[in-house]
């Protein structure tokens, strides 16, 4: 039996954008969707994550105008408050938990980024992380005076130079920055994204629907990290994990079904429309998937959408049936349904199999499901010696066990 010292520790992150991972999460009877505009909510969940000894709280971000094809969704909860503001506010009511903000390199200058993140690291006492993204939605461009978003390869090239320039500015900062710079986090999935992550990131967020997906992703990333002269053990791979907890597996499945039932057909269609960035409001849900209409009108790259839709369209599946099924696998992440013991066992199994270093938890709805995790799964992981009972230090680098800046470069 492994001792507390030798058993691999499980890292926990909380991805808290919105009201939960399920599009119908806001309709859960105990969900409090209006609270996400209040400080009381962020105090509660920030302190909750800290009680669960999470490494960090992460907020995603988008800079596009929500709504497919210019139409604002009516049934999707989309309270996208500025992530940096939410995180620094949570810093004022917590002491240890790390705070990771998603900020785009495509629509911020290096000076803007450097100043914003340096201030964030200082006012949080060295708990800032930067989830480096390049923006993906086409309608973002119009909000920044541009006709078109740059191509992906140009966006990544710009990301590399922006990170380098921001790093130079941080090194020259007159007021000291507690961590020297924020911890770098990345979530790219494409080959370019993975290479950028391998060169830059200290923690990586990804979808992994199965343990095999996780092993494949982590193995690939560790190879890429080693290939650029960095130590793969100095990078945390943190796939997303949504979950529904209940005292028995049957109850968890029933709870999951009840939550999915709250995703009525209109919500499913809006969720699909949002993902495909196309207005589906005039389409007949009982008719086959209107593939040509979608490909002609989507604001996303046509080939990406074709990859998702061609097979189901060729089978003659109706738009409504496809949308309903689509909501059941939100964004390709692993969804766990079961008891706290089963969830703890599953998490340990993944980590021991090399599928990940921990999990980015995406509660199905907030805040109740995260409370269940902290109250019921966290103690099991601690009892098994897989989760810290106290924070090791003050900064996010300490919490992640990253060592000083530069420690990732292989000797």
């Amino acid at each position, binding site marked *: 039996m492994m001792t507390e010292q030798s058993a691999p520790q499980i890292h926990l992150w909380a991805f808290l954008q919105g009201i939960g991972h399920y599009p119908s999460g*806001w*309709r859960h*009877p105990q*969900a409090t*969707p*209006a609270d996400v*505009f*209040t*400080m009381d909510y*962020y*105090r509660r969940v920030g302190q909750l994550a800290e009680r669960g000894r999470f490494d960090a709280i992460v907020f995603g971000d988008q*800079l*596009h*105008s929500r*709504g497919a094809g*210019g139409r*604002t*969704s*009516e*049934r*999707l*909860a*989309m*309270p*996208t*408050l*500025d992530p*940096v*503001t*939410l*995180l*620094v*506010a949570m*810093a*004022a*009511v917590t002491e240890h938990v790390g705070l990771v903000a998603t900020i785009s390199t495509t*629509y*911020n*200058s290096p*000076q*803007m980024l450097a*100043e*914003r993140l*340096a*201030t*964030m690291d*200082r*006012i*949080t*006492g060295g708990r800032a992380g930067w989830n480096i993204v390049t923006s993906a939605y086409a*309608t973002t461009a*119009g*909000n*920044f*005076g541009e006709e078109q978003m740059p191509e992906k390869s140009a966006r990544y090239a710009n990301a590399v130079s922006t990170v380098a320039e921001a790093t130079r500015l941080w090194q020259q900062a*007159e*007021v000291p920055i507690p961590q020297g710079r924020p911890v770098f986090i990345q979530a790219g999935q494409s080959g370019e994204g993975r290479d950028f992550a391998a060169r830059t990131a200290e923690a990586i967020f990804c979808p992994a629907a199965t343990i095999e997906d996780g092993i494949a992703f982590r193995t690939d990333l560790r190879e890429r990290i080693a290939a650029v002269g960095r130590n793969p053990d100095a990078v945390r791979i943190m796939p997303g994990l949504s979950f529904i907890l209940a005292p028995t597996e049957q109850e968890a499945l029933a709870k999951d079904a009840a939550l999915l039932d*709250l995703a*009525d057909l209109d*919500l499913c269609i809006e969720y699909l429309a949002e993902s495909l960035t196309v207005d589906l409001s005039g389409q007949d849900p009982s008719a086959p998937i209107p593939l040509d209409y979608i490909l002609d009108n989507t604001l996303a790259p046509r080939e990406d959408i074709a990859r998702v839709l061609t097979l189901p369209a060729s089978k003659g599946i109706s738009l409504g049936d496809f949308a309903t099924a689509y909501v059941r696998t939100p964004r390709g992440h692993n969804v766990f349904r079961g008891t706290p013991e089963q969830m703890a066992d599953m998490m340990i199994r993944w980590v021991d199999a090399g599928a990940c270093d921990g999990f980015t938890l995406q509660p199905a709805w907030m805040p109740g499901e995260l409370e269940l995790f902290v109250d019921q799964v966290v103690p099991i992981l601690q009892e098994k010696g897989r989760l810290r009972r106290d924070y090791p230090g003050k900064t996010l680098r300490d919490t992640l066990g990253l060592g000083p800046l530069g420690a990732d470069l292989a000797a």
Partner: protein
Amino acid sequence: MSRAFFLSVSTDDPRLNDPLWARSVLSAAEQARIDLFVMGRPDARPFDAQVIMGWAAAATRRIGIVAAVPAATSHPFHVARALSAVDHLSDGRSGWLPLCGGAPDGMAEDMVEAVCGLWDGWSADTLIIDKASGRYLDASKVRPTNHEGPFFKVAGPVNAMRPPQGHILLVIDGADPVSVAEADIALVTEGQEIAARCRLLKTRVDSDPGAIADRFGWGEIDGAHFELNDAMADIARIAERFGHLVEPREGKTLRDRLGLALEEFA
């Protein structure tokens, strides 16, 4: 409601980056019944004031928090979102002080217009959040902004809610004045004319409180603004010498408390 006397302070002290110092100075200002705490000045801003303001929203309960926002290194879409979030988390206690310094002529004005346009893209009653019917919002109350100014083109709608105050308090500093038609508060030196609903005279902690009170009584000014130097000591002096001029005021948001409610919300 009787006219309110405003007490306002500003700081460019780099120690505002330090959570321990920031907490003590904000707490002292709050106890001194200071209405507005302005972070950053036209010539010095050794921090990103919008970031500190988000932290301060959680670290304070009553004081108005105002961020200096330089047009030269800001974008309206980011500014509209960050300030909207701060106004929500602070229950409507936020303001902003746009700065021209270093930017081409007209850029700060363009930024103000674009940011206000983005906030106006959401009606105050857009959100429905009705679990039973599944309607989260009324899409007819969200409109693109399509701002096309000399410096900024912003389509919108912004993906952030309208601030609880509608528009957060707009503060103009006479040392770097943005020319806008409807500023809420101007920080002015002796004899300086700037159009705003309220004028706060920049003065010193050792100036005569009686003279300030007289001028308030005559309607020449609406309060006093102090540029903090030795912040903790200055706040103590302001509390001691000027605190009695401030009367307790009721109201949910900063605008309500200062008698600056927007027409549409009145």
